[in-house]
């Protein structure tokens, strides 16, 4: 077994052990699953992709991406992907990484309130920004003043106002852009994981559920919809894998002015496909899938939330559309086939 497979197995097993539907539902009441978080932190999974000398557990983007994918699939009620992304942004700036859960946000300006920060109430929020003086990072230690809120999956999404004591550090050029990219990339990975899980749940259901004396899976119309769903899941998988590869290839310093269209396209595709995947999953599950008791909703409510977080489809489509129109006739193909 390769090292990569070993890591994936470890994280999947850990998430599965803690990931009973009861635990996930209970976590929504208690804001998060603290026991799961401790287990992840003890295993060093929360800071993969960041160097050890800054407090991370080493490795690069690839293991961090694998962990985020697994977190999305498991509907894990902890800010795992958020912490991984925030750790990588701090590490790029050479900042030490605080222990405990982290959240990452891009700030409109210094001292400005940050809207709908994932797990803002219990995480240390890392805010990235850029202004006339250059890029900067603010580390807002918990507990910050927060206006609590949630997304439709029940995950905390809190408005965070930095206190006077928040540390603000100058950061290397491109820090804010890098943060925006990683937010989009990790959100896409969460969606990719959840989309895959929605497909698995649906395959299992249509094989077990019988109507008219045979499993739903025997009906050609059901098969056609299932395949359409698989097509969307595969698109998101391909797009996110390619975006991880492109980000990895670009390293910490992508070329100046590069839009990183790979990440943009991956988030656009993930956001768009999320809705199609969730809709087909529910249609094939029938009424039972819409209940609080059924596990499907843990995945679909996340798909409906995540598609509009960290770069909604409308924003990504517009940015991509602008870039494609700028590329123009004869320029579109070279732009599409750039390696990043």
């Amino acid at each position: 077994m390769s090292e990569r497979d070993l890591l994936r197995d470890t994280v999947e097993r850990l998430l599965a052990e803690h990931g009973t539907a009861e635990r996930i539902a209970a976590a929504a009441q208690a804001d998060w699953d603290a026991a799961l978080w401790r287990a992840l932190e003890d295993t060093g999974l929360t800071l993969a992709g960041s160097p050890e000398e800054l407090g991370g557990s080493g490795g690069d983007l690839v293991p961090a991406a694998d962990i985020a994918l697994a977190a999305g699939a498991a509907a894990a009620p902890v800010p795992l992907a958020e912490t991984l992304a925030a750790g990588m942004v701090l590490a790029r700036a050479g900042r030490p990484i605080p222990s405990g859960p982290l959240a990452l946000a891009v700030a409109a300006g210094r001292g400005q309130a940050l809207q709908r920060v994932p797990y803002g109430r219990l995480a240390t929020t890392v805010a990235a920004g850029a202004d006339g003086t250059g890029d900067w990072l603010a580390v807002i230690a918990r507990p910050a003043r927060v206006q609590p809120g949630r997304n439709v999956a029940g995950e905390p999404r809190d408005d965070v106002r930095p206190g006077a004591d928040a540390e603000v550090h100058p950061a290397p050029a491109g820090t804010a852009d890098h943060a925006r990219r990683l937010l989009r990339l990790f959100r896409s990975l969460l969606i990719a994981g959840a989309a895959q899980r929605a497909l698995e749940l649906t395959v299992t259901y249509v094989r077990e559920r019988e109507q008219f004396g045979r499993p739903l899976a025997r009906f050609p119309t059901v098969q056609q919809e299932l395949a359409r769903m698989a097509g969307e899941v595969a698109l998101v998988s391909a797009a996110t894998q390619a975006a991880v590869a492109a980000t990895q290839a670009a390293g910490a310093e992508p070329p100046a002015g590069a839009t990183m269209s790979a990440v943009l396209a991956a988030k656009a595709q993930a956001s768009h496909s999320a809705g199609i995947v969730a809709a087909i999953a529910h249609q094939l599950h029938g009424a039972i899938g819409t209940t609080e008791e059924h596990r499907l909703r843990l995945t679909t409510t996340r798909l409906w939330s995540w598609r509009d977080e960290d770069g909604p489809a409308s924003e990504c489509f517009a940015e991509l559309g602008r870039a494609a129109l700028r590329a123009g006739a004869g320029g579109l193909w070279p732009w599409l086939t750039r390696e990043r």
Partner: protein
Amino acid sequence: MRHGTLLPPVRPLPAAAAELRSAVRGFLAAERAAGRFVPVCDAWLSGWDESFSRRLAARGWVGMTIPPEYGGQGPSALERYVVIEELLAAGAPVAAHWVSDRQVVPNLLRYGSEELRRRYLPAIAQGACYFAIGLSEPDAGSDLAAVRTTGTRVDGGWRVSGVKIWTSGAHCAHALIALLRTGPRDGRQRHVGLSQLLIELGQPGVTVRPIISMTGEHHFNEVVFSDVFVPDAQVVGTIGDGWAQVTSELAYERSGPERLLSTFVLLDTLVGELASRAGDARTQDAVGRVVSRLWACRQMSLAVAGALADGEAPEIAAALVKDVGTRLESEIIEVARMLTAAEPDPAGAGIAGMLAHAVLHAPGFTLRGGTNEILRGIVARGLAVR
């Protein structure tokens, strides 16, 4: 089902790809500048230009996977991918050598006898030998195993009778790669008794009748075989193994860039025409939608190409590429319509003319190479629901 089970891992293109890509672009720019071709949609069906095929071959870009002993460059499936996606994106006339390059080369390299390889591969690598595909029949469309064209054993070969249909380019091609029945069905086992033969088209007993498309163009044909003698040497692989041989090639046929780029030149022209509206939100949104999907489809197609190059047979993923890619090809037409309000005009220039061509070709996108409904059935089977 681990993430990625549906789709092989996305692999990077070989290091030589970038240089090759730029060489192909240079060649295509020179060809266009010299007025040797005009970009059209769906050129891999409609752009038959034998001199173009030969010029391309002179640069080593036809039959690229043919090893040097048969007159080619050596195995480089991903480099071939780069070349053909460049050609398709440019709307270049690749129809003449298309089937030879995509279908016949891998088929002969896998199953063909030494004699067949020596007969056909060098000519294919020179861009001078064109094939048509003989799969469909009047009563065997999606249900391919229902083929009734029959080869009867005779001294030294097979006597072939029957009808093949939708054979693109058969009126210009040199030979046809056919699936036919050489033995009886074994009860309910419909896939036994089928074989693959290469049949030369310019011989007595072969009649090629045109089937004119609704565009008015002549691409398709009906090919009738009346007691045509085909020598044993023209049998590909093993008599009776035709079904396995044909289905093993389908991943090549279904996952290539031609399943997403048939209308790319329309999109390219569209972004050019809309340059002045780059700030318009509705335009950005509509263009962004198809561009992100095209980008993702290409990554899927590349993932399958990488797996094929590594000797895997990703049948499910290949079927998925064709389903999502061909639907995107039609979606591009819709976006062009909505954003330009151009009326499709067969005699028109620019978008209007391209739309007229593309609209009439579009129904074929989701039919050829296995209808999308059949492909989705394959995917469902892959997900273990049947």
